[in-house]
């Protein structure tokens, strides 16, 4: 475990030396800031209209912010994971790590954990928007829903990062890793869900595989379901397994 932590710490610190990480952080904060402004503005308009007609006004919740944060992860996580393993291969430092007393899974999990901690940092920064919103509405946000949404974000990020690390370890070229990772995310997040609406009757495989519904329909609505946790954790483990296997395969080649 100490080895995992050592690797994770280096990867985490590494992000603060890289322009890409700052760009990702800035982009997420900017987009969420704009969405926050729109949410506040439209709720105000709506409230004034409702006042004019005498109907009840609905207060906004955290869903636009956390929902869009999840959406932004689809595009930003490939940029954070693309170099994780591929860069070691390119720079030749893989030889160093593979001849140090580091188990293959420790290397992969360490890399993943470093990226995960970085995403947690970004997620913590985005808390500023729900908190501001909290003070602008009368009864405040529903704290349970907020916690549930952020828990969902954490699981989604974990799964994305797991897959990203796995794909990164298949390549020695970061651009290739970037595009394949993004393609995989887009596929799981949107495309796999399309056939679900076409297939008649009951729950089906496509529905289960659809990544976004495990977040938007439950976590983001304040429902923490074991099935969704299992889904995201499985994807994380699968990605880390692919990564570990890829490193092992490299030895046998």
């Amino acid at each position, binding site marked *: 475990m*100490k080895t995992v932590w050592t690797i994770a710490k280096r990867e985490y610190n590494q992000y603060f030396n890289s322009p890409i990480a700052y760009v990702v952080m800035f982009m997420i904060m900017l987009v969420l800031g704009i969405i926050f402004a729109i949410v506040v503005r439209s709720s105000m308009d709506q409230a004034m209209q409702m006042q004019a007609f005498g109907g009840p006004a609905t207060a906004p919740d955290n869903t636009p912010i956390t929902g869009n944060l999840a959406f932004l992860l689809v595009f930003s996580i490939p940029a954070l994971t693309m170099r994780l393993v591929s860069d070691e291969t390119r*720079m030749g430092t893989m030889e160093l790590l593979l001849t140090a007393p*580091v188990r293959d899974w420790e290397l992969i999990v360490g890399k993943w954990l470093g990226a995960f901690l970085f995403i947690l940092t970004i997620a913590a920064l985005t808390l500023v928007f729900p908190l501001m919103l909290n003070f602008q509405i009368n009864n405040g946000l529903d704290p349970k829903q907020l916690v549930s949404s952020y828990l969902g974000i954490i699981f989604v990020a974990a799964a994305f990062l797991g897959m990203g690390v796995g794909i990164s370890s298949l390549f020695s070229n970061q651009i290739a890793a970037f595009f394949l990772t993004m393609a995989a995310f887009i596929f799981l997040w949107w495309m796999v869900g399309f056939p679900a609406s076409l297939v008649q009757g009951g729950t089906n495989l496509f529905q289960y595989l659809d990544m976004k519904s495990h977040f938007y329909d439950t976590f983001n609505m304040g429902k923490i379901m074991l099935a969704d946790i299992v889904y995201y954790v499985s994807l994380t483990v699968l990605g880390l397994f692919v990564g570990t296997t890829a490193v092992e395969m490299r030895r046998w080649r």
Partner: protein
Amino acid sequence: MIRVNGLTKDYGSRRAVDQITFDAQQGEILGFLGPNGAGKTTTMRILTGYMPPTDGEAIVAGYDVVEESLEVRRRVGYLPETVPLYTDMSVFEYLKYMGDLRHLPDVEDRVDEVLEKVGLADRADGTIHNLSKGMRQRVGLAQALLHRPEVLILDEPTIGLDPGQVVEVRKLIREIGKERTVLLSTHILSEAQNICDRVLIINKGRIVAEDTPEKLQARLLGAERVMLRVRGETDDLPFVIEKVKGVQSVDVKEEGLVEFQFAPGQDIRPEVAKAVISEGYDLLEMRPLGMSLEEIFLELTNTERNHEQGAK
């Protein structure tokens, strides 16, 4: 400390290492000598646990490189051919990271100690990116020494260093080799002669010779060759030299330049010099011609081929 038995490695259909068997004792510096692509790096990578062999076994520091790879890696220091460095880190950060990966107690003191040893103490806070090739090589060496390994495996440790640094690094290796096992690869014969207790010559994945550097050279040199240069015309100089007792053959290379051979062990150079001068020639230069690595290789691979043909 190192025991290798029938080690074989295939890359697809190409056999990079073919049935290699050798061992190395504690306190011994073993040199791997061979041309590029001979299988030196592959053998070293197997011994460091980087990749498993196709066949055969290797025991390093008492552990099997395949079965107990992690134990082997704990006890081996390795400097790969292309020094693997995180160029965006400082020298100190890099070494501390490597020390942490190996769970070294009081890493920071140890890093300072090793940096002192390789002569980089004043560059500890500098970014690796800004270091010269020689300095990077020494950072790599520091990394290999960090955990006081029982076995040190160095792939071309002096490549890219300037002559002064080469002398320093060789001194350092000799010092380490007193207590530990060192396996180093090189394609420079003089380097092998300089530091190694024993040399393995490896070609096309096979060991073609194994001995101390001195014996190896003596064995290969059936005769000693000397080059001799005089001012002006060569004339009948070959006849003058031939008359000296012990000379086996004389060969005129060009005008004023003559090569002669004599049996090893009986140095007749003074007699030749006297004879040449007494005949009125102006002797400019007289120089022994060592056998170059290339020649040794040709020699060894030729004898091997002859053996093979003989067997058929």
